[in-house]
């Protein structure tokens, strides 16, 4: 038998395996990698082109084989119609994929666009106002993805993945239930927070540097009036100074407060917590939030210039704190395992035990894969394995 597989070879195979659906990769990736390592010459660090192309073709053939027919797909995408249960695994891949929320919004946007252009059928001139699109629609779409992406996903899980009476249980099938509360794992959370802080700092810097005016408020005898004031050199310098001050405060906190507070963190028992990575859907929502915020700043530059100084100070203070926290977490110097733990530790708040929340459990925790969900009036299924999913995840 050969030695274990070279990590470089594993990465090379992993890139080619992306042709397969995610669920397939999770289930079979390690097995296929081992076979490819057996077939490859000793010491190979990359998959040869021929084998890679073979995976590419076979992967896309697998995707094609599992994809619902066009009409069913259009109904699923456009009207959220329930797919035949034999496409449940495909639907799960789609719902848990990075593009689900993006596509969901684009479909809504397309429907609104069609309605807006209906007058063209009556002979009116067809027009597309790109300015309106970028000023109104694009930030709305992106912020909608960031805010409601999780809600849409949960709704589609309920519609597409929950098994109904008379259907066969598959690994992707779900049943409603009380589940452990998902919390983003500390490293993922810190990385996401750093992306947000860097993006905000850059945006504020740009706003301070080039915005010609800023929103201002004037109190006169009549009342409160919102006006616009030119950005002077002094205003810009004050904003930058505020950011520098924030950075100094952040450095001081990172130097003297972050380490001791994280090391002093005493976690409570969390039987109903499920620590999860940010994952592809989370990254999509994060990117949408950053992009939406940037576009919003372009839409209301005066307001962005007004807030740029204080917000830049907060972001500049956060960056050294996040970096210090990341070092402590990476070194294993704290009991904080979730992002919320890090926040509570830094704020010196005590830990609180999470409570179970409404969610969805694998149907296979209730009935074995391959069995048919009983119809109303049928005999009750046998008792499930000891321990609920909530307990196991705890």
């Amino acid at each position, binding site marked *: *038998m050969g030695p274990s597989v070279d990590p470089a070879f594993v990465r090379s195979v992993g890139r080619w395996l992306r042709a397969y659906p995610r669920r397939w990769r999770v289930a079979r990736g390690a097995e296929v990698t*081992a*076979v490819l390592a057996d077939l490859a010459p000793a010491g190979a660090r990359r998959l040869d082109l021929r084998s890679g192309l073979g*995976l590419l073709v076979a992967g896309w*053939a697998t995707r094609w084989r599992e994809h619902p027919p066009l009409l069913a797909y259009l109904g699923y995408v456009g009207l959220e119609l329930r797919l035949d249960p034999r496409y449940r695994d495909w639907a799960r891949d789609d719902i848990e994929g990075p593009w689900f929320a993006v596509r969901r919004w684009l479909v809504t946007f397309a429907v609104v666009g069609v309605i807006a252009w209906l007058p063209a059928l009556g002979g009116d001139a067809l027009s597309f106002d790109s300015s309106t699109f970028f000023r109104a629609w694009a930030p709305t779409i992106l912020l909608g993805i960031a805010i409601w992406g999780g809600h849409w996903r949960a709704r589609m899980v309920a519609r597409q993945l929950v098994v109904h009476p008379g259907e066969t249980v598959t690994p992707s099938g779900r049943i409603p239930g009380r589940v452990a509360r998902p919390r983003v794992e500390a490293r993922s959370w810190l990385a996401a927070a750093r992306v947000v802080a860097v993006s905000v700092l850059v945006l504020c810097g740009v706003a301070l540097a080039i915005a010609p005016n800023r929103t201002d408020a004037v109190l006169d005898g009549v009342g409160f009036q919102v006006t616009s004031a030119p950005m002077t050199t002094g205003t810009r310098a004050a904003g930058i100074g505020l950011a520098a001050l924030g950075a100094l405060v952040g450095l001081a906190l990172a130097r003297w407060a972050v380490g001791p507070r994280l090391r002093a963190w005493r976690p409570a028992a969390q039987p109903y917590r499920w620590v999860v990575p940010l994952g592809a859907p989370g990254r999509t929502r994060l990117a949408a939030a950053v992009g939406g915020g940037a576009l919003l700043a372009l839409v209301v530059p005066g307001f962005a210039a007004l807030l740029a100084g204080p917000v830049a100070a907060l972001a500049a203070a956060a960056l050294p704190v996040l970096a210090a926290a990341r070092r402590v977490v990476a070194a294993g110097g704290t009991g904080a395992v979730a992002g919320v733990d890090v926040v509570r530790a830094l704020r010196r708040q005590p830990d609180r035990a999470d409570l179970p929340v409404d969610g969805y459990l694998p149907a296979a925790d209730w009935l074995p894969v391959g069995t048919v969900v009983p119809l109303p009036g049928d005999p009750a299924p046998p008792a499930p394995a000891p321990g609920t999913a909530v307990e196991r995840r705890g």
Partner: protein
Amino acid sequence: MAMRLTEQAYLVLLALADEPRHGYGVVQEVRALSGGTVRLGAGTLYGILDRLVGAGYAEGSGEVVVDGRLRRYYRLTPEGHDALTAETARLAALARRADRLLGGVARPGIA
């Protein structure tokens, strides 16, 4: 759910006939059964295995990790055995008919 057995799928089923095998074992056995003419790549092999498992002709029969490499074994199901037997009988009948035909026909010469 019946599936059409291509030559490669037939050879994979045949490789599983005597004992459960893991992916690399199937590749080696198919090469030996075909006299070295059929060399399955991993993409082709797992496409075939997916379809055989989906048709109920084969199933997983356990996995082991050897030197850090995951080996999942596959074995023939009774339905797979029946399909293999039927396909072998069909091929054998075809070979007999071909033999009869070739036995009564002279090799064409060069005009």
